[in-house]
């Protein structure tokens, strides 16, 4: 599986080594954020699988040399080694998004996006923690994680509901998705694995349909695609 992939464009791989290598774990929502954006941006990349579970390879010597924080994902682009999914999303958008829409230069929008990147980290600390505790034997406080996730989801639902009312379909002001939507999406979508129902967040559920209909969207294991929109 250690092979260059240009997902969504089967059979038309770029020949030669891709410049980008993603150190990746399939079931990680944080790794998926990068696979998702690179697929949307049609960026070719190779995957270096890391045995996060059960092998705990992200704590192995070789990985800690790559990222002393011992966290996935790590992305190498040529000589550059980057970590932290939110930071890498910004990097990929700045470098490879020719449309300029995924991480716009406008200072106000940048601030908004970074605000939601921070929310995404809070979602990871709650929703993903509950998932890791229930599914993968992590010793996190499940009740506390769930409560924290519900608190965030309530605010997101309200934000998105009023967004719909005022013609804003995405988390940030522009009339198109940004890296903020990518950053928040995976652990919202995987919340049920942590026993966090999204039943009380109808606007949040509708937003997950919209994200899943972004051109170039790919799934990860645990997330199903949305059907086609009405034409």
């Amino acid at each position, binding site marked *: 599986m250690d092979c260059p992939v240009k997902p969504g464009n089967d059979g038309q791989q770029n020949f030669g080594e891709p410049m980008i290598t993603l150190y990746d774990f399939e079931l990680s929502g944080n790794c998926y954020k990068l696979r998702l954006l690179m697929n949307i941006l049609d960026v070719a990349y190779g995957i270096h699988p890391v*045995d996060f579970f059960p092998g705990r390879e992200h704590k192995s010597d070789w990985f800690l040399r790559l990222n002393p924080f011992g966290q996935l994902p790590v992305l190498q682009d040529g000589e550059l080694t980057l970590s932290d999914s939110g930071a890498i999303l910004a990097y990929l958008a700045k470098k490879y998004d020719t449309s300029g829409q995924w991480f716009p230069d406008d200072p106000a929008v940048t601030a908004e996006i970074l605000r939601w990147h921070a929310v995404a980290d809070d979602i990871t600390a709650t929703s993903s923690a509950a998932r890791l505790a229930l*599914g993968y*034997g992590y010793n996190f406080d499940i009740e506390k994680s769930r409560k924290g996730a519900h608190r965030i989801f309530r605010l997101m639902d309200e934000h998105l509901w009023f967004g719909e009312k005022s013609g804003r379909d995405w988390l940030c002001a522009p009339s198109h998705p940004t890296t903020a939507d990518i950053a928040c999406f995976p652990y919202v979508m995987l919340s*049920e694995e942590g026993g966090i129902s999204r039943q009380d967040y109808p606007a949040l559920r509708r937003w997950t349909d919209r994200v899943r209909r972004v051109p170039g969207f790919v799934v990860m294991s645990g997330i199903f695609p949305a059907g086609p929109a009405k034409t």
Partner: protein
Amino acid sequence: MPKAPDPITRDLWHVVAATNELPIGQIETTLLLDRRIALTRGIDGEPVAWLATGEENGDEIDSETVLDRLPVRTAYGYTWTCLGTPSAELFPIPEFAEPDRVNMSCGSIGIHVSAPRAVENFLDMGHFPYVHTDILGSEPHTEVKEYDVEVSEERDEVLATKCKFMQPRAAKSATTAMEVEYVYRVPHPFCSVLYKSCPEDESRRDVIGIFLQPMTEETCRAHLLQSMIDSTSTITDLRRFQQTIFGQDKPILENQYPKKLPLDPRSETPIRADKSAIAYRRWLSQKGITYGVIPQAS
């Protein structure tokens, strides 16, 4: 207060951990049949299990000091224990001992569903195109052809043979869809083993096992085993593949209601493709299993 497990379930060997993932000299706790049990490994590497008494998780321990032990055995890379009187034998997987096989655990993953629901999902082929899209199946090839199911009296297991399904990428080299053949065994109420045609050697089969640890009636932990004929892939690659598959089943299982497997035939709507599931449900009924199932009202 959870109800006591039925005597059949109580006396079964149950999987609780991948043996070499248990820390030596440190306590790990887990749930089995609503009881908290503690696990560790001695310096000899042998697993030790006992009924947990309190907050033991993470503590250091010398396994020699544990006196009141549960019976333990290691098989297929996993640690098994029993809360009742265990039978002498665990079901056989003879292929596991073949010297050229790559045997590996693929992680123990908690799921919010009963163990029998997870077994039934493992036996099911009809969901391949919808849940394992472009890996184990893809539309439009959705047909589940007739296959054979029997309950082997001699071995006391459910056996489904001649199970065929059209798979988009059955082998790494495959460019077109091809039909693969599966054999499924259910040799234990909460375990299943499948045999799948092996791309590398036509005369042999890859073996994939799922061993479910019934934690409560509505939650379980899936322990995955792969025993492969594969000289090229790394363990990380092979684990990643199996985890990808299992990660796709997880949201389905966790969205299934009721969580316990209903044994009354009028609870759900079977079709011909569900023959093996029907045989499995009947087999559980006949055995008198009531843990993790909704028994048929008598």
